[in-house]
């Protein structure tokens, strides 16, 4: 079956010749019309539209956005904050970058509709420190929107006022975790908070109810309110509605970003047809489907089980190529859709070295708060580092697994899982390569690809 065509909702104007990131261009393309209509409606109706749409968060966890909004404590009398998670830092993910740089007003419109729906008077965009140009673009776009009365006091002549400020991070991955992000926004180290009791919806920024949504998620809100939640829910597949931007990187012919209806394209269609297959003379070996913390898939492995199609349970027997790129299917085969970052590796890659690269990342980024994660991520890095640069032992795979198994589930935040899953899945699926590594290293050509 050939791949479906892209459905560009969020990326409609990305890379379009002549499309610029200023307000005039956005208005010429119908910008802020959805917001004008939304401001004439009751906030509860807007929340209902988002609930009906079935929108799931695009930052990594895939939590239903409408449910997140429903959990907000509206009785406390405290102000409600919206914080936009523009920290995009999961390795392999590069979608928000293009929204921020090329279509910032789409994002601002989504933010303002979401603020109005949730009676938010103050929003912050937490943008990663490595996007200095993006922060300047957003500040300029907000100033333009403020001058046009789309942001700021008495928006569109109503008595509703809402301000947006841009807040820059400073290079710490953990700020993408929502409670770490809130701590960082409070001017502290980004140590994630324990839940319960610190659910942002109740005790977020300065102990006030806070909504944290990803950039792409908020852009979807604009389209949901534009077309109606019902209509939006018909895009994609049941429980995996809407479109999703898939970011493909690594060893394929045409890496890049592609927007598809969720679940309508398989991994094989994406990599072989859309991305043009492996590099010349190579074959695909492995793929990480949802950012570097998602469990790796090995080409050639098969997944069997029962899944729900409509009201019926049907058997499935999939190879990696057959898996639909949606939250539930990827979850069923033991990995996740995560942030949509697909990282492809071909047969030139040694999996011990690829894991070594990932382990260095997580050891660098552990916030250090919980012992199992701080020590475990460091030990995993040291072991893979020793294997690559020093003496590898045939039992290293088992040792790595032993360390990883003691991290997941024993930490305050999901970073524990994020750093354990790569090691667990690499060792499980490529155990033979870990065993054979000391020998393989001796025979490696001098000019082979360096990953660690």
């Amino acid at each position, binding site marked *: 079956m050939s791949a479906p065509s892209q459905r560009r909702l969020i990326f409609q104007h990305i890379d379009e010749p002549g499309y610029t990131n200023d307000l005039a261009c956005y208005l010429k393309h119908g910008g802020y019309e959805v917001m004008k209509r939304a401001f004439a409606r009751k906030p509860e109706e807007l929340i209902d539209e988002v609930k009906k749409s079935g929108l799931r968060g695009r930052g990594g966890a895939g939590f239903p956005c409408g449910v997140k909004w429903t959990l907000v404590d509206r009785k406390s009398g405290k*102000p409600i904050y919206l914080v936009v998670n523009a920290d*995009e*830092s*999961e*390795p*392999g*993910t*590069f979608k*928000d*970058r293009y929204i921020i740089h090329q279509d910032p007003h789409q994002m601002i419109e989504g933010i303002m509709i979401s603020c109005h729906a949730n009676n938010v008077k*103050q929003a912050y965009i937490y943008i*990663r*420190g*490595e*996007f*200095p*140009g993006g922060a300047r673009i957003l500040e300029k776009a907000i100033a333009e929107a403020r001058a046009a009365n789309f942001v700021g006091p008495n928006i569109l002549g109503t008595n509703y006022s809402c301000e947006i*400020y841009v*807040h*820059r*991070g*400073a*290079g*710490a*991955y953990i700020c993408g975790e929502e409670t770490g992000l809130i701590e*960082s*926004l*409070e*001017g*502290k*180290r*980004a140590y994630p908070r324990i839940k319960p009791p610190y659910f942002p919806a109740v005790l977020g920024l*300065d102990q006030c109810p806070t909504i944290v949504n990803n950039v792409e998620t908020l852009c979807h809100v604009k389209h949901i309110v534009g077309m109606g939640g019902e209509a939006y829910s018909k895009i994609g597949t049941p429980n995996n509605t809407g479109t999703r931007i898939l*970011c*493909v*990187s*690594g*060893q394929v012919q045409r*890496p*890049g*970003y592609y927007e598809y209806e969720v679940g309508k394209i398989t991994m094989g269609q994406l990599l072989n047809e859309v991305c043009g297959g492996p590099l010349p003379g190579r074959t695909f070996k492995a793929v990480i489907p949802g950012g*570097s913390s998602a469990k790796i898939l090995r080409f050639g492995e098969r997944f069997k089980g029962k899944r729900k199609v409509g009201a019926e349970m049907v058997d499935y027997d999939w190879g990696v190529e057959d898996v639909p790129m949606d939250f539930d299917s990827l979850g069923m085969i033991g990995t996740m859709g995560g942030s949509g*970052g697909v*990282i492809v*590796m071909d047969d030139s*890659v040694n999996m011990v070295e*690829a894991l070594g*690269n*990932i382990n*260095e*990342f997580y050891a*660098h*980024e552990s*916030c250090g708060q919980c012992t199992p994660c701080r020590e475990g991520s460091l030990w995993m890095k040291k072991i893979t580092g020793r294997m690559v640069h020093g003496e590898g032992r045939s039992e290293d795979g088992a040792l790595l697994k032993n360390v990883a198994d003691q991290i997941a589930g024993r930490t305050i935040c999901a970073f524990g899982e994020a750093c354990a899953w790569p090691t667990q899945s690499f060792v499980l699926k490529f155990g033979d390569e870990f065993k054979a590594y000391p020998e393989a290293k001796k025979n490696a050509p001098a000019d082979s*690809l*360096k*990953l660690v």
Partner: protein
Amino acid sequence: MNLKPETFSRIDEVIPHYPVKRSAALPLLHLVQEDQGYISQEAIEWIAAKLELQPINIYELVTFYPMFRQKPIGRRHIKVCRTLSCALMGGYKACGEFEKQFNTHRGEISPDGEVTIEFVECLASCGTAPVVMIDDDLHEKVDCAKARELSARIKTEAATRQ
């Protein structure tokens, strides 16, 4: 604290963006580092006083967040992405080429004082790997040839400045 007048005005502008002053710690650190090139002990104490905090409350941020530094660097900052997608496409080679071009090692100031080269973690442009940031500008698909070209450009700019 000796800062440029526009830095002072931007500092005064940003503090009221937050319900609690402490939230302005990261923005102030960015502004001071952009002004001075690094965060000195004096800057830590000054920012703390400005936000009615203890110096340790600022110092712990400088040591936690990778982008803040306590020492000067070269005139240009070359940040090469080290993470998987870039490494798969030759990020380590690109970094080595920069080191060769400026006769220096990662984390050090080059002998001519022109650059500091560093490995950084994922820059979120994995589809155009390998990527490099030179100061605020992103450069995509940086193979060895492009690394040489970028290095030559930096050297030319340095020569015209002198």
